[in-house]
């Protein structure tokens, strides 16, 4: 009897130990998982902060010779990434103008017609579209816009590739948001005899506004840093360009150019820092909005 109790006790302590070890392992691996974000941000700030100034935002990049001279004199590389900032803003705004209205309206359609075969098909297709690699979207915009319409690389083509990327995100976030609105609010409006478009514009959209905004901001933060599709469509430009039919730069495109030019390589950190700042701010703001409405 006594020995049996001993065995059970030993067994129990072994199990408890195993339990504690496992918890320790989970904690340890979780910490490892989040360490890259800390390390990445640290690296960007450490290497990039000195370059950030007003000039960095309002000037265009120096040519490679000027950069070389500055580096060999031990100075900061002059100039900035104004062409990238304006290009990114131009393309993101254009992509939003294309994809937000279509995305929101499609989301409303899905919400209003649950279970219809066409709605199910649209939902599935939009899910699949969301998984399409961004580089493939670049190929598509190249074939749809660069070749036939602008007959050359252009901001428009870049925006189209970004908008195809953003569209399914907005569709799904709109539908998910509207699903959370109490049915009674909508029924009250319908019972008052309000026309359907007013039910949408005055009831559904305002009630779900913060949810829609969260989806839109997350969508924008996702396309801000996209590089691959822009390499195939917007190409890049060394000057500020606001003509949507011309090649245009963007912050990620500039980072790629700096990375490939040994003289300019010091600029990658500050450019990445600025880009990360924009992306993370949008991310956190949208999370804030989402948390406040819940």
């Amino acid at each position, binding site marked *: 009897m006594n020995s049996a109790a001993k065995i059970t006790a030993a067994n129990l302590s072994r199990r408890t130990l195993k339990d504690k070890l496992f918890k320790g392992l989970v904690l340890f691996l979780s910490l490892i*998982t*989040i360490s890259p974000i800390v390390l990445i941000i640290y690296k960007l700030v450490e290497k990039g902060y000195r370059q950030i100034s007003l000039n960095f935002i309002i000037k265009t990049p120096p040519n490679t010779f000027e950069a070389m001279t500055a580096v060999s004199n031990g100075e900061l590389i002059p100039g900035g990434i104004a062409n990238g900032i304006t290009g990114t803003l131009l393309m993101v705004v254009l992509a939003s103008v294309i994809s937000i209205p*279509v995305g929101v309206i499609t989301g409303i359609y899905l919400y209003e017609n649950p279970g219809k075969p066409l709605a199910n098909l649209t939902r599935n297709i939009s899910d*699949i579209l969301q998984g399409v690699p961004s580089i493939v979207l670049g190929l598509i915009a190249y074939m749809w816009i660069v070749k036939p319409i602008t007959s050359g690389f252009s901001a428009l083509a870049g925006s189209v590739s970004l908008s195809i990327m953003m*569209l399914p995100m907005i569709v799904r976030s709109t539908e998910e948001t509207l699903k959370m609105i109490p049915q009674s609010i909508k029924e009250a409006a319908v019972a008052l005899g309000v026309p359907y478009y007013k039910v949408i514009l005055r009831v559904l959209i305002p009630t779900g506004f913060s949810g829609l905004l969260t989806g839109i901001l997350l969508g924008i933060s996702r396309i801000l840093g996209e590089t691959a599709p822009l390499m195939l469509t917007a190409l890049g430009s060394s000057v500020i360009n606001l003509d949507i039919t011309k090649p245009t730069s963007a912050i990620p495109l500039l980072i790629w150019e700096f990375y490939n030019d040994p003289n300019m390589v010091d600029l990658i950190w500050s450019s990445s820092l600025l880009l990360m700042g924009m992306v993370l701010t949008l991310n956190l703001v949208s999370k804030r909005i989402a948390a406040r409405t819940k």
Partner: protein
Amino acid sequence: MNNSTVKSFNKSPIGGFRGLFNSDKITKGVLLLSSFVILFVAGGMIFSLVEGAIPALKSFGLRFIWSNNWNPTEGKENYGALPFIAGTIITSVAALLISLPLSFSVSLFLGEYYRGTRMAKILGTMVDLLAGIPSIVYGLWGFYVLRPLLIDLGLPNQGFGIFTASIILAIMIIPYATSLSNEIITMVPNELKEAAYSLGATRSEVIFNVVVPSARSGIIAGYILSFGRALGETMAVTMLVGNANIVPDGFFGTGNTMASVIANQFGEADGLKLSSLIAIGLLLFLLTGIINAIGKFIIKRMG
């Protein structure tokens, strides 16, 4: 009284012409039309990719998939996608394997051990932020921080290759795996867990015998979706994989992936080469589409 309201209730066929243009019908029409946009875009994508890939598929046939010879030299032009298909699958599978223990731990941290606490909120936000880091920034970090580290550890080819790319890919796909599996783990009914505890089970025993089995399909679906992400990643992989157009000769060798060969060689491409790159794009589209469809199918079956 608002006239249009009255009209919208007027169902008599005599309403005829005016009934055709009442605002409700127009609104419904607009909703319907916009949902066609997505179908149209998706259909157009497949059509354009196939159309662009036809010259390459015509010249090489099925050999395009099986040939490992990628040779742009004029006169001896031959394009085979095998090196890139192999590179894509090897890097993605490796990334998935590396990320498995990490994302599993994070989902247990968020959904089980520290569910609903402040710590979980902070950790969850940080993991979500991982998804927000642009691919090119991951590439820079891999190039300037991770690669020197791996060189010190004795990795050949100046630290470039499948292994380096897979590590970065693994970090990138973690948030996609955890967002689903942590939600599913949170949803495991408390009664099930309590029943196990009352029988004297320890926490880790509850996790392995109750939580994981009942959240299994959700966890698997999350990993499949994150695998789909890894297949299409471009910039970070391009900067680290070594860009050698050969079938990788092992886990530490260099190679190239479908997405990064498109990014690398698109600039100088025309004619048959361009068509071959588009054909690779088509294959990549189909591959990610199938993987994502499987993931969504599992999610749908869970209800």
